[in-house]
């Protein structure tokens, strides 16, 4: 592997740029990314934020929906290099915008500057999966009460009302479209707290779901509407 370790340091033939991103209230510096990299790739593969999903990478499914400066867009169509200095909110940060029940002061999280470098250290020779097992996020199929050691209600209360509604109404099957839909619906209800049925359909017409037939998703919107209005 000696030769390939050298080859590994190769950069892409195309241009690379430095990017400063502010995501979910935290700052990130990426010193050297390919100019063609989209925000979705950077979130998922460079910053450890895989919540936004990669279903089509052509803006035709909505699975990667994020908010950039408060505007709902497909992260796959945002060049990461053009996202510098803009406020990005992903599904991982959606609950953050709410007052944390554990911290009633509701203060903004302290910003941490993280210098991220990728693929610059020498490559480690691997001896077996045990060495890197800790770095693999495994599907978590456990019971909620086992996972978190807290009550189901406690877990829910730390989620955005749209996320809570998705859990409670059966709006989730495979779940691949869920993060994008959650972001899109949170955005909808933020602008229009009581949308008509047609307004809901139009607002999520850019988010494809192949499992649910949308029925339970419509139900989730109503549930979220009630939760946000405090009438649930």
């Amino acid at each position, binding site marked *: *592997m000696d030769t*390939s370790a050298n*080859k*590994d340091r190769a*950069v*892409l*033939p195309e241009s690379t740029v430095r990017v400063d991103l502010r995501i979910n209230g935290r700052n990130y510096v990426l010193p050297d990314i*390919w100019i*063609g990299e989209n925000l979705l790739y950077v979130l998922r593969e460079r910053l*450890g934020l*895989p*919540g*936004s*999903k*990669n*279903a*089509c990478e*052509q803006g*035709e*499914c909505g*699975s990667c929906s994020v908010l950039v400066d408060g505007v709902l867009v497909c992260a796959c169509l945002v060049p990461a290099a053009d996202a510098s200095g803009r406020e990005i909110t992903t*599904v991982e940060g959606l609950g953050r915008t709410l007052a944390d029940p554990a911290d009633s002061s509701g203060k903004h999280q302290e910003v941490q500057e993280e210098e991220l470098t990728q*693929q610059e250290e020498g*490559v480690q*020779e*691997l001896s077996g*999966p045990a060495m*890197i097992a800790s770095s*693999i*996020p*495994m*599907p*978590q*199929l456990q*019971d909620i009460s086992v996972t978190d050691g807290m009550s189901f209600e406690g877990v*829910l209360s730390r*989620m955005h009302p749209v*996320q809570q509604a998705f*859990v*409670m*109404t*059966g709006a*989730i*099957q*495979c*779940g*691949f479209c*869920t*993060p994008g839909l*959650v972001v899109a619906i949170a955005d909808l209800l933020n602008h229009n707290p009581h949308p008509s049925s*047609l307004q809901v*359909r*139009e607002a999520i017409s850019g988010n*494809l779901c*192949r499992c649910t*037939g*949308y*029925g*339970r*998703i419509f139900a989730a919107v109503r549930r979220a509407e009630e939760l946000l209005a405090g009438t649930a």
Partner: protein
Amino acid sequence: MPPMPSVPPMPPMPSVPLAPGTTREGGWQESSGPAGFSGPFATSGLIGSSVIRPDAVDKARGDFAFSSDLWAEGMLWGKVLRSPYPSARILSIDTARAQQMSGVMAVLTWADLPGDQVFGLEAKDQPVFAHDMVRYSGEPIAAVAATHPELARQAADAIVVDFEPGPPLVDPDEALSAPAIHEEGNVFRHIALRHGDIEAEGDVVVEGTYEVGMQDQAFMGPESGLAIPSSDGSVDLYISTQWLHVDRDQVAACLGLPPELVRLHLAGVGGAFGAREDITIQVQLCLLALRTRRPVKMVFSRAESFLGHVHRHPARMWYRHHARRDGTLVKVEARIVLDGGAYMSSSAAVIANATCFAAGPYRVPSAAVDGFAVRTNNPPCGAMRGFGAVQVCFAYESQMDRLADALQMDPIELRLKNAICPTDRLITGQVVGGTAPVAEVIRAAAEAPLPEPASGDLLELPGGAGRCAEYDKVVRGTGFAVGFKNLLYSEGFDDFSTARCRLDGDMATITCAAAEVGQGFVTLARQVATETLGVTKVRILSGDTNEIGSAGSTSASRQSWMSGGAVLEACKAVADRILSMAADTLQVRPETLRLSGGHVVSGDGIPLISLDDLTRGKPVEESVVFHHRPTDPLDSEGQGNAHVSFAFVAHKAVVDVDVELGLVRVVQLSTAQDVGKVLNPLQLLGQIEGGTLQGVGLAVMEELLVADGIVQNPSFTDYLIPTALDAPDIVVARLVEEPDPLAPFGAKGAGEMPAISSTPAVVSAIRDATGLALSRVPVRPQDIANG
């Protein structure tokens, strides 16, 4: 022992508990009574209630790790080079330039494959990498690993392949007589089904030809996975799939490794619908990882996903129905040709289904059906939700409407008159048996109330956001269809599932390799464990292929029955042992005890010993292999008891059609379904709504277009699936609960049925609105407007 007639899959109770980890055989057992779940372990109402998915919270937060979310230190990116030609000789493959590119760690072709060159579910006829021939556009030729996905793409582009293209064989009818394009021939399977008096003639005869286009599963989570090599030459593959063990067997054979050195782990699956039954990237990923000795990740683009997995078989079907003047069916003749594409996949089983169910859920005394699945240079086709039953349902239900027309008879009445009963025979000669509430589902769906007229908002009319509709040009139509399908595997396949239950204190751990693809098996397994063991702390693990035996495929509407059954048996075996232990301690008979609220309780519910006291630190574990009733192969005339059980479904569709523009908006679908027993109402509703919408998609928009062997629309821009503005209101008119005597809990699989009769119901409604014959799906605007 108290009587337990209602728990059919109970294995013979051993008098002495087995040691932990002992595997015993469980499974089917004929039963005299209905199979509602009761008995000594029924401690709560969780079966039958809308338990929330255990993975819902993680999925809603974006924390659930799908196969495309995996990451490992030092990871490389894989990429596959595919053939642009549907039929070509490969003269040479030059990888030199790609090999030399900076950041490229491996470029592999057929010559690098240590084991079998070919794989396949039913026949090993599909190359991992094309060698001297490519037989479809999209066939893999080489695989690359590089440090960045863009580099991997550039390296794949840098491979030079010298092709000698030939004329592709793309017409399935021509394939029957054309020179073979593969050493195994062009006919995957021909079933010549003959039943009853094939000379019989009806007073009224209707004839028609029908076509179904190529539908794609179009799940949202693209094919992806991560392979991690070990220094001992073994490999771990984290993968989204429908069946870990059959993947493992195929991958190990191609890698030339013993199966135990290839460990497959289920990574989060973003939908499947049949497309993940065949392997797609598994061998390439493992090979790249073993060669580079580094973790390799691969994620298909949407375009690759459309090229890289099998599709629903396009079908051409000729039908002739014979009936008496009173509407009684006399005979059905049919010729069904399914285009299987370049390689076999599951074509043989799909054509068996299409042929067996060709006459629909009706009493048909005589039938002559010829079913062909053929090889062409089109993309390979295989499993998709409904598996052969979808195509023929469109044809036979179109025929039933046509027959009703010819008889001047109400189409519902015609269907009711011929509805099959448990004592009737299918055209395969098999007695339906079990439960068959066909008339019930027909009546319930037919009687469902009709929706309000459209509001007039253009968004709600055909054409939607394009605002091209004119309210007074929109015609409403209603249509109806009924369908059915087998549950579980057929034709003598020895189908089983394996599950392990371990109880440690008040925590149960269920290990079962059943692939959770979104359908909700993990919820059901938890419900079963909670109900059986009286505990609420339940962990569901899928294990890897070395940790647990096969659970079979998440397909054929089989996991609730098969793996649900396996989990039930494993939990019951653990419960038995605990009750025996408690009985010994308490000096009472075990039959007087049951499990509830984390305790062994008395018959009247008084806690006697906690599970904590009984099992903490000395866990009780049982493994079970669960089988269903054996079936027989079909004989040379397509006759035999080939299927385990059947489920039935009906849809009534209401559509608005802009006749001038040929645009359709499906307004409402009301459905009734034979479900045996409802295990989780919310999850069942999700299956019904989702499956129904896939049927709507096939009816009015979904088709992978293939021209001269080349897919024209491999993208979500042009392969259209319904959006929220296209989705009709889906109304469950009735869930018929007649427990299947063979099934655990009496529950029939429910996943596929909604996708079967929804398509013909929608087309029937469009015919009602337009008066057109419409013999092909999807119905395109030009079929109506220029029709």
